[in-house]
């Protein structure tokens, strides 16, 4: 096997690994946005996809990009998402906080099957 072939295989492996893991993170973040109980907690789940999922998918695409210009453009999109997503998340959180939204600070426990009948367990 020549060096160019090994390089090509390494690139493919990086691309496949990064994109698969990134896909898992994006889907998990979307499921978290659906499942979590309260606005402030949902924000965290959206952050999962915005940071690691997006960056990993972009890394995977860079690894299989043909020319350097495409790679640089993809890296630019990644940098832009990396810089703007925390700012947007902070802006949403700050707007909700200033508007008087109170975060629910209770302990969200799973219902134990033993006390499913009583009112204990949810709060």
């Amino acid at each position, binding site marked *: 096997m020549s060096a160019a072939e090994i390089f090509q295989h390494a690139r493919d492996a990086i691309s496949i690994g990064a994109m*698969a893991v990134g896909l898992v993170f994006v889907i998990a973040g979307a499921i978290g946005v659906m499942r979590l109980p309260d*606005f402030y907690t949902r924000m965290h789940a959206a952050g999962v996809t915005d940071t690691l999922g997006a960056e990993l998918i972009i890394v995977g695409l860079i690894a299989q990009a043909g020319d350097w210009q495409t790679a640089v453009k993809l890296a630019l999109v990644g940098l832009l*998402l990396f810089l703007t997503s925390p700012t*947007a998340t902070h802006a*949403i959180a700050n707007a909700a906080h200033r508007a008087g939204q109170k975060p629910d600070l209770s302990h969200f426990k799973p219902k134990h099957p033993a006390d499913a009948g009583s009112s204990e367990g949810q709060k």
Partner: protein
Amino acid sequence: MTFLTFLVAIGMAVAMAIMLARLFAGPTLYDRVLAANSFGTKTVLFLLVFSALVGRQDAIDIALLYALINFVATIAILKFFRYRSLEIALAQMSLRRALDGEYEK
């Protein structure tokens, strides 16, 4: 390779559908803004994957623009719903800055 890229595109579409569900269901305004912002991020990723899938580099430029517009739109929506107007906020800002003497510095 192409199959995985296609799978990622399908996954992005599923995540966008879930975000749309949260956008319509979200009890508060902020849930909806959060869902819209996250939907925009997934649209950017979908555009990137799409450009790799069909081999057209134009879609990357569109994705770059979409990322910028998504950020600005989120900030503009939040600002509008805090002040109920876009120009009042600007006027207040410049007034406060003039009162603080920021311009003299």
